[in-house]
């Protein structure tokens, strides 16, 4: 099976850490002790994929930020991983002047320009240590792999390419240029890491088109340059799909404003929405103690790829997660019981007669129990972590009635009438916070066919009574005028929920997750707009939205600017990379993963989801609010 994007990025990073030599997988080589110096972008790239233990295994004994105070460490090669910005280069030149390390291996996350290279060389000559700079590399790994098929471009400084920044009224051309270039750089890095030149499709007349055009130009230049092409190994790649090129779909957030505001019901998306989930790390606030002496403790948990429970359940609906945690807890208690029993049994068996075989059996069991103890402890730790996270999420759900919101929104999206009229729901003070009500209304407003002005007025009044910020509504009005795509009646096909009453087996088992009053909603499969578009493009179906998409192929021999009329590939695509300009979220990712799973069999598809940054609903709402206030 072909390797995923994250695996390829990890291999590239390990090569960097191995002093740019190919990895040799043996423990008989002598260890070389190194020092790793990174800036905040390098930190973002490395931290979700390599833990400190793995760094130690590779021989990195010390890792420090670039701009911290660093003392000399002689006799150790230093590996630098940073972007070649002016600040960083200044600090590097200072390092060279101070002669901090013995040998330097520079790896720049973005290609370093000729002038900056000369600057570096001058500084090295002045400090008389040009010989200790062993290697200078341009690394094309400037993106953050959060999951094995999901990537984000930036974490720090993600305001520079956010939805707000791209859609501001007063954005200057130069700023726009800078933003688009940074996105193109990272997308180019993704293509290089994957090792293939994709076929690009994008809608017209928005930021996505600009990104796609520039990427196309960049890829074309690189492919033409036979001497130093980064894609020369493409045709030698192994795997079944060596001759198939993937499809890169660049979409714009403006196409679908409803999904980021959606109240969701799957574990990972809920954690991102309700708690603080950043770079695969969750921060949970726990209140301990009685009412007077309440202390809030914050705990952080890492949701690593080795966490099996998380990998299995991050896309499941929340009630299933609660049950699964309960099951895991039971299984753990059973294994713990076994170990205790064994300990007991060992004491008795020493006096029996047929002991030798039994003894060796017991020894084997004992050694296996001893070696499985750390495993058990690890499982306990994971179960504890997930219990805490799930409890915190449950608190939020109960307090803000998120299940009711979810149900209403699903009904809205599938064009069924909600149980109570919308205005009443917005007025009801028990239903969550004002922000939740605002989200519900905005979702309805941007996705409904028609909204009568009376309804609009009533809702606006209800919202202002609740104290919600209405500038976002202004922006939504304008958006609706310009950007609404003609929605067909069955846009959100097949949605809808079944409400199952909660006399669950959870309560009968006396579990901690007493979900009283929380409806056990079962989500039916439906496709969000992003998924539908990707499906249409991959299967070469024709949908009205997709008709107008541009087709760009960097490998074709044509002067840029003219459209390739008949040279389109007619095959269906098996691999796709989806990129959303202006912010993405876990809901779309989960939807794409579900879509991929449903397409197993002869037509297995792989879809990689990427976005310029991850926004949860409250952050997105804030940006919409800012855009609305600026309009006035």
């Amino acid at each position, binding site marked *: 099976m072909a390797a995923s994007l994250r695996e*390829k990025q990890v291999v590239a990073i390990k090569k960097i850490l191995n002093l740019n030599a190919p990895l040799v*997988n043996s423990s008989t080589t002598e*260890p070389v002790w190194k020092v790793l110096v990174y800036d905040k972008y390098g930190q973002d790239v490395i931290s979700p994929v390599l833990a400190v233990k793995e760094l130690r295994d590779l021989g990195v004994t010390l890792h420090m930020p670039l701009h911290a105070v660093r003392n000399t460490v002689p006799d150790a090669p230093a590996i630098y991983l940073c972007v070649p910005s002016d600040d960083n280069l200044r600090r590097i030149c200072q390092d060279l*002047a101070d002669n901090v390390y013995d040998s330097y291996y520079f790896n720049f996350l973005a290609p370093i320009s000729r002038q900056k290279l000369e600057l570096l060389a001058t500084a090295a*000559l002045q400090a008389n240590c040009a010989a200790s700079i062993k290697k200078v590399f341009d690394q094309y790994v400037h993106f953050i792999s959060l999951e094995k098929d999901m990537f984000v471009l930036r974490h720090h400084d993600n305001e520079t390419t956010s939805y707000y920044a791209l859609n501001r009224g007063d954005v200057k051309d130069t700023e726009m240029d800078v933003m688009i270039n940074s996105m193109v750089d990272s997308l180019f890095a993704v293509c290089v890491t994957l090792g293939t030149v994709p076929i690009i499709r994008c809608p017209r007349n928005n930021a996505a088109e600009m990104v796609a055009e520039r990427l196309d130009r960049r890829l074309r230049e690189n492919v033409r340059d036979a001497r130093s092409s980064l894609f020369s190994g493409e045709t030698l790649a192994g795997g079944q799909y060596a001759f198939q090129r993937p499809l890169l779909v660049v979409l714009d957030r403006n196409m679908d404003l409803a999904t980021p505001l959606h109240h969701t019901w799957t574990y990972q998306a809920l954690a991102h929405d309700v708690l603080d989930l950043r770079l695969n790390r969750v921060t949970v606030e726990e209140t301990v103690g009685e009412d007077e002496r309440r202390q809030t403790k914050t705990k952080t948990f890492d949701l690593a790829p080795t966490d099996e429970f998380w990998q299995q359940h991050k896309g499941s609906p929340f009630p299933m997660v609660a049950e699964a945690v309960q099951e895991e807890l039971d299984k753990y208690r059973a294994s713990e019981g076994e170990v205790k029993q064994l300990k007991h049994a060992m004491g008795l068996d020493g006096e029996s007669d047929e002991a030798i075989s039994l003894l060796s059996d017991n020894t084997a069991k004992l050694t296996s129990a001893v070696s499985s103890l750390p495993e058990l402890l690890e499982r306990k730790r994971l179960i504890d972590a997930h219990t805490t996270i799930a409890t915190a999420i449950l608190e939020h759900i109960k307090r803000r009635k998120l299940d009711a919101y979810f149900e209403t929104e699903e009904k809205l999206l599938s064009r069924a009438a909600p149980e109570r009229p919308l205005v009443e729901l917005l007025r009801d003070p028990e239903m969550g916070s004002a922000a939740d009500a605002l989200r519900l209304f905005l979702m309805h407003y941007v996705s409904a066919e028609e909204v009568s002005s009376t309804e609009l007025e009533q809702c606006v009044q209800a919202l202002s009574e609740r104290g919600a910020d209405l500038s976002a509504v202004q922006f939504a009005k304008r958006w609706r005028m310009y950007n609404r795509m003609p929605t067909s009646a069955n846009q959100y096909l097949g949605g809808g929920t079944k409400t199952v009453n909660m006399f669950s087996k959870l309560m009968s088992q006396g579990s901690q997750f007493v979900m009283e009053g929380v409806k056990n909603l079962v989500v039916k499969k439906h496709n969000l707009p992003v998924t539908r578009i990707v499906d249409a493009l991959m299967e070469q179906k024709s949908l009205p939205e997709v008709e107008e998409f541009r087709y760009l192929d960097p490998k074709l021999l044509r002067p840029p600017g003219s459209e390739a009329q008949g040279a389109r590939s007619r095959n269906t695509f098996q691999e796709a990379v989806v990129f959303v300009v202006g912010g993405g979220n876990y809901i779309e990712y989960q939807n794409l993963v579900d879509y991929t799973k449903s397409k197993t069999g002869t037509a297995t598809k792989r879809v990689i989801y990427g976005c310029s940054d991850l926004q949860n609903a409250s952050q997105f709402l804030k940006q919409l609010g800012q855009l609305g206030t600026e309009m006035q």
Partner: protein
Amino acid sequence: MPSLDVQACRDRSGEFSAVVRALRERQQAAPAPAAAAARPAALSRHKEFMAVAKLIGRDISQTYSKLEKLTLLAKRRSLYEDRPMEIEELTRIIKQDMGSLNKQILQLQQLSRSPDGGKSVQSFSSNVVVTLQQKLANMSSQFKGVLEVRTENLRRQRSRREQFSRGGVSSNLPPSALSGFHQGSVLLADEAAARGDTVLELGADGQQQGQMLLMEEQDTYYQARSETMKNIESTVVELGAIFQQLAHMVHEQEEMVQRIDANVEDTSMNVEAAHSEILKYFQSVSSNRWLMVKVFGVLIVFFIVFVMFLT
């Protein structure tokens, strides 16, 4: 999975050295650049440390290759290709190596505690020691695994030999094994007492000559086997001691599951919080004129009281 090679980089080192050369020629006319910043010479202890660390690293990798050879040998299962002497020899050597490596690493740890160089050097040294300890721990556990495999194979071979030879000695362990030292196998000692009688009885049971010879042959064979078992036992026990020590040392510095951005965020958060607290306090202090008046008042009162008290 076959090993991936991902070419996601471009080597600019050639370009860099060309630029350096060009600039150097240009600078030939200009005055010679200043000498490199002098590094404090007091880092000699660190150099010593690094040299020892390199030696230990090399020893570990050599021992590792020996261990791999032993693994290959121990996995052989056929009855006739067995080379007990070689395996014994290798086991002994590896055991010695591990003991000496353990001592060396302890010494290295002592060296690393020297207050030399800056903070970076110290954390660097301690991390080097931890990594070496972990490597040794991994190797020890692998060694233990190999010994277990070997024991298993021995047992299996013994049972097969029993099947082929109908000497009918029904006990599972020969007497000589049971008379060995029992540090880790107290239970076996109990067995010994019970078992030993039966075997000797069988032996003294006036069997035919042929069977006696056969049994003697088997006896010597069993003795060799028992020696091996004894050695394995002692090795496992010693390994256990090493393990405990290693676990203690490794536990001292636990950073198993951290990520590199953990402390940075904490620290920056703390620094910001502290900064804001100080600012608040500063504001409260500087804007509190009454405080000054109060302080002066108290001082004057004390002064007066003091003066009156003295006079």
